[in-house]
């Protein structure tokens, strides 16, 4: 895609303006690294005063500014530009490459210099440099804006997720306050149970949020050591055992032998706990959860298969987003923060790995995480996209 950069030429010599315009009119710069091509839209002004007027209406992104002008000088124009906080790149054109002018202009934020007389090639080189700078700056601005947007979205969804349980618990408390005589014992128990459940959900959300922040910021000190994932998995299975037992869900884990890798124990626990508790939560009563951990070539695979409600391809597509919870008739009673899988994915990335899911609605899902044991120690990847 060819973009256009607006360029204003301010020079009192008509010949200079014409020559400059002629050099740049058909000029195009190509930046394959930025996947951009740039053409130029040119305007002229014969004095500093006129130049300032054109700047207001034309909004140039690049200003080719002669220093020696009849009325106000090029430096005066630059002064005004700074005063009015106009954002553009200025290339000062000076007849005598005077050091003093150069220093003053640099202090005023001029981007570059061009000494008269210059060849068309020199002009093109200078403009090319300015164009590159302009594009880089714009990309940086876009990225920063996007990042702000993501952060804002994250915070507003988070606020909503925290507000919902508060509203629910508040509603129950108001009922207890207003209807002490009107409530049946069974309703009373229901009110207490739901309130506790929503509180638990909120606590889980806060804990997940802390996990996520630690991973994102890279502040948590990773304690890498040799661990047997099979041994860690046994403990994690014990943790989910009670909630599985209530619904008679069988937990199956039949490792052949230890699977040792260099890892942070806490991180592996978070991965396993998230996958196992999901597999129990979204299972059917009397269902089964099967865990396998195996080394295959240079990867370590953790697979958790459930016999639960499964997901449609459309639901799978949305699954790894933050605060995404698949909402349907079957998941209504299930609480979750919507952060678990997002955390699992980030942790998998820390180990150079990935998480994926294979699911059939009504039959169940298999979540697979693979980790690369060899180059797992680069914690830097954790610090990159902070939200």
């Amino acid at each position, binding site marked *: 895609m060819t973009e256009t950069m607006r360029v204003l030429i301010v020079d009192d010599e008509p010949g200079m303006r014409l020559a400059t315009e002629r050099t740049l009119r058909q000029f195009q710069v190509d930046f394959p690294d930025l996947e951009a091509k740039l053409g130029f839209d040119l305007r002229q002004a014969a004095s500093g005063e006129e130049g300032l007027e054109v700047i207001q209406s034309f909004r140039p992104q690049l200003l080719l500014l002669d220093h020696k002008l009849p009325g106000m000088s090029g430096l005066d124009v630059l002064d005004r530009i700074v005063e009015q906080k106009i954002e553009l790149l200025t290339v000062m054109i000076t007849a005598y490459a005077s050091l003093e002018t150069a220093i003053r202009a640099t202090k005023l934020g001029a981007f570059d210099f061009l000494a008269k007389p210059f060849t068309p090639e020199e002009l093109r080189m200078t403009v090319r440099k300015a164009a590159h700078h302009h594009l880089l700056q714009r990309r940086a601005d876009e990225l920063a804006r996007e990042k702000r947007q993501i952060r804002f979205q994250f915070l507003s969804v988070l606020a909503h997720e925290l507000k919902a349980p508060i509203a629910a618990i508040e*509603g129950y408390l108001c009922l207890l306050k207003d*209807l002490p005589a009107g409530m049946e014992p069974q309703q009373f128990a229901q009110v207490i149970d739901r309130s506790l459940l929503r509180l638990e959900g909120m606590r889980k959300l806060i804990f997940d949020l802390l996990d996520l922040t630690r991973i994102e910021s890279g502040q948590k000190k990773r304690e890498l050591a040799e661990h047997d994932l099979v041994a860690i998995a046994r403990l994690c299975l014990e943790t989910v055992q009670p909630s599985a037992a209530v619904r008679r869900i069988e937990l199956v884990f039949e490792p052949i032998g230890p699977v040792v890798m260099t890892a942070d124990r806490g991180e592996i626990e978070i991965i396993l706990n998230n996958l196992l508790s999901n597999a129990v939560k979204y299972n059917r009563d009397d269902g089964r959860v099967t865990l396998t951990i195996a080394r295959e070539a240079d990867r370590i695979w953790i697979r958790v298969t459930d016999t639960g409600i499964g997901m449609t391809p459309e639901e799978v597509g949305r699954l790894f987003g933050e605060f995404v919870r698949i909402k349907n008739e079957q998941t*209504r009673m299930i609480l979750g923060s919507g952060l678990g899988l997002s955390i699992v994915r980030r942790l998998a990335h820390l180990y150079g790995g990935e998480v994926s899911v294979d699911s059939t609605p009504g039959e169940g899902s298999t979540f697979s995480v693979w980790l690369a044991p060899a180059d797992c120690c680069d914690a830097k990847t954790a610090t990159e996209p902070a939200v």
Partner: protein
Amino acid sequence: MQQPKHTILVIDDDIDFAQQLQISLKAAGFGVRIAFGEQEAEQALREGRPDLVISDLMMEHMDGGFVLCHRIKQQDPTIPVILTTAVTSATGMRFDTISADERAWVKADAILAKPVRFEQIIREIRRLLPEA
């Protein structure tokens, strides 16, 4: 306990809000049935005519409440419908600004913004069911 004179159908996929409404409406002497979504609501409507419907506006489908309300009124225009919605607090969009055309289409007898106070709902019910 005497048989309640009026039955209210509460349609909301927010299980906590629906239960709270059920408890306070029962305490106020109404019979209550709950549907946790559009499908259950259709089922409940087939099973018997409620005296009044309180429905959430946005459930699994963005405008589920609107569509449901429209359908109820089509089948039996005498059933009063109260729509509750968290849209205002979530997005700042207000329903008093919707056009007359839209209002005519929606046909809800009242639209209440969540969080709703239960006294407010009961006041609306008594207005719409004067004999209650």
